[in-house]
């Protein structure tokens, strides 16, 4: 299951880079983010999953989509083909670095469940990480007011 979602994550990430329609690219990024959230949940990293879906799949994508919808032009713009040349190189490079990191550090990495964050999501969130709630409120305010900025009438 995890492998299947992982493959979907890579496919959506590649689509986000290669799709010419910016709106579709942003939606692919959202799909990639949702795949990542599912992987987090499958790996019992609920804390990371909640943040991934609220911040990245939620707020950031809303900002991307609204900006794109506001900047859409009727005149076609010739796109640079650089991405087609550079993306595969960077993709291979990152996979290589990823493997090197995995090979180098995998033996030394302790299980996350063995750390101070052991416990159910509620305990961790309310008992140990309540300061993050303030940060979350801050992010939500920032996102809401940014979206309000984009949707307001000029010189209102």
């Amino acid at each position, binding site marked *: 299951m995890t492998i299947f979602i992982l493959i979907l994550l890579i496919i959506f990430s590649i689509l986000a880079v290669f799709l010419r329609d910016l709106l579709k690219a942003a939606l692919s990024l959202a799909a990639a983010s949702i795949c990542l959230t599912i992987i987090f949940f499958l790996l019992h990293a609920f804390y990371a999953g909640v943040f991934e879906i609220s911040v990245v799949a939620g707020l950031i994508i809303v900002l991307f989509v609204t*900006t794109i919808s506001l900047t859409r032009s009727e005149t076609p713009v010739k796109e640079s083909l650089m991405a087609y040349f550079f993306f595969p190189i960077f993709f291979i490079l990152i996979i290589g670095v990823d493997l090197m990191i995995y090979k180098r*550090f995998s033996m*030394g990495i302790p299980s996350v469940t063995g750390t101070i964050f052991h416990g159910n999501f509620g305990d961790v969130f309310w008992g140990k990480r309540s*300061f*993050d709630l303030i940060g979350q409120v801050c992010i939500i305010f*920032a996102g809401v*007011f*940014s979206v309000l900025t984009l949707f307001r009438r000029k010189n209102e």
Partner: protein
Amino acid sequence: MFIFIVFPLVGAGIMPLLGKLSKKKWPDILSAMVLLILLVCSVVIFSPSLKEPWQYIQNVHFLNEPVHINLALDSFNGLFLILISFISFTISLFSIDYMEIYGSKQIYYALLLVIVAALNGLVLSKDLFGIYIFLESAAIASFGLVAFSLEAEALEGAYKYLLLSVIASGFILLGIVLLFAITGSLSLDGVKKVMEIVNNKSVITLCSILFIVGFGLKTALVPFHSWMPDAYTKAPATFPAISSGLIIKITGIYVLARIFFNMFQINAGVSSALLFLGMFSIIVGTFLALGQKDIKRMLAYSSISQVGYIIAGFGVGTALGVIAAIFQLFNHSIFKSLLFLNAGSLEKSTGTQSLDEMGGLEKKMPVTATTNAVGLLSTAGVPPLNGFWSKLLIIMALLQAKLYIYAIIAIFMSVLTLWYFLIVHRQAFFGKLNEKWSSVREAPFWMSLSMIILALACFVIGIAFYIVLKRFIIPASVPLAGFIMK
């Protein structure tokens, strides 16, 4: 201390409601009052005696029950609390008149207060994930401010800013994940303790690279600087003022300083990398600023160059280098905010940012011309203004560390900075008045007042530099001193 985060957040929350009552009056008053109260509180709680990193810990309680929110204070972040409150207060005053042309002041002030809350939260947090969340909050609220005019170029700048900010966050988050995986801790001192035992140099090197790239993007160090000129050019002038004055300093330099002086021990490799990036930024930023015709774009490149001095100061890694870097950071926040507000004043009065179209505005805008002269002379490091002393200390630190070539480059680039700023000042304020500016008037009261406050700050800090150094800057450097290179 909790007031520094909650107060502006509550202010931001009720801002749209106040906007319904009066779109012009109440948002101005609320924002200025919140920030003035924070300024007073920050000065009151600053204590030079908090010399140990995160010496004073406040455990927040609600109805006598602990809510597991721990805020940490020492003399280093205490200085930043003063800086955040002071710069944002003057920007809030400037916005009273300046933001009339953009409308929706209640949303604007809400974004400004969210940025202030996020920056305060970041400096009071000693937790890597807490830092990351507040960093993201500041980035998202900044996106709103960049796009505020809703012009195509502003939206393009905002989009570029958001994209590069996300990339920076990716690097930072990867670094945090690696550290958490190795140490099982997210607090800066917790990571430090485990790393001292584990002493895994590969992890430290890898995380150092990730953090330098991530925070380098946030700070707009060369070669990670491309977002800055585009984001600054079409945003309201108050955004580059708060971004260059505070956001890049705190989301970039402050966190880097905490990481390399309080969490990892700064080593020769990191020192060389910071020195190189700093000097590279000074050179590239200065030369790119030379040919600019748009005043905000020119100031953006100048900002990249001046931030290079701060990074180079930290890169030297000695006690004098760190003191000089903190002093330059403190001064640069003031004079660069002033220069961007001057640019905003010119833009509001003339309707243009192009230096070619300006000229002879000195008689029409004496306050803007005078405060601009103070800002540019301070940036270039002309005595007795504040920028002179911090640049002098940086050059002395470079010489003390026997980095003679870097010191010569720093002096030469400072002279070049003076040259291009004088050209800019002459183009804008001296010479024959262009006929189309015959009806131009000086900036309104609140804009003029905020510029005068910042210009006076440059002057007073320059004259009383010894007191400022002794009372604020040197104590602020002490929490970083434990890891200064021997």
